[in-house]
């Protein structure tokens, strides 16, 4: 497995959150919840996990009658996301490269894939 593959980030809910945060600065909690189609408590749990890992920052604005919670990727979170996305790209790309064909006439190929000449000796 690619060392840059982040098992922590690859949890579907967390990956979705980080993907939504990547193009923006601050994103409202409600937008994340509605887009991922999850509950407040489930989203809070994942955001807390991401915050504990240092990947996101949470801000709560208490001005006025409503409380507004916003989330933002930290620089470390952004780097981790980019590394993980690059690791996924490599996995996909590696699967597209055809494997070298094995020898089919019973003669073993050398390290360079060459077979012994029929007229050797």
């Amino acid at each position, binding site marked *: *497995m690619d060392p840059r*593959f982040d098992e922590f980030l*690859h949890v*579907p809910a967390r*990956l*979705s959150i980080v*993907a*939504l*945060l*990547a*193009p*923006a*600065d*601050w*994103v*409202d909690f*409600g*937008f994340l919840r509605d*887009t991922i189609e999850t509950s407040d408590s489930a989203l809070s749990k994942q955001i807390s996990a991401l915050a504990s890992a240092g990947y996101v920052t949470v801000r709560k604005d208490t001005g006025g009658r409503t409380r507004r919670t*916003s989330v933002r990727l930290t620089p470390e979170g952004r780097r981790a996301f980019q590394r993980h*996305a690059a690791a*996924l*790209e490599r*996995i*996909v790309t*590696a*699967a597209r490269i055809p494997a070298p064909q094995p020898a089919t006439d019973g003669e073993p190929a050398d390290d360079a894939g060459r077979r012994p000449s029929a007229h050797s000796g």
Partner: protein
Amino acid sequence: MDPQDAQSSLDTIHRLQDRTRQEIVRGLFPLPYVLISALGLFAGFAAADLPDPWSTAGTVFGFTLWAGVGIVYGHFASVRRKATAREAGIYLAMMVALLAVFGASRITAHFWLGLPSEGVVSQSVVAAAVTVAAYLAITPLVRRGIKATID
């Protein structure tokens, strides 16, 4: 990690990033914002022909309304991002263009239409109306330009 699972994850990432970008674009020049800011623009430019201190008061009120409604809408958007240099350049170009339209319209109103410099149908009032029409016309272009800068 199965390559198909990896591809599925990448597709999800791209889809969700696009969703955020769509939300950013949706917050650019919504209709209520455009109408209120157009009103501020008209008040700011039309006040030029008023006697002082009404000229100053009208100009300050108008342009404060124009800028202020943008700040308020930006603050309450569900997805926020820092303006890039390119985006600031687009807004600056828009302001310069609107100032040019106002200036050219006022000159036309004076020399071509012979309008007075005071009254209900003064040079500034007509020029302000033309400038607001130009603002409404170029808003979709500015929106498209800013959308292109969102990566």
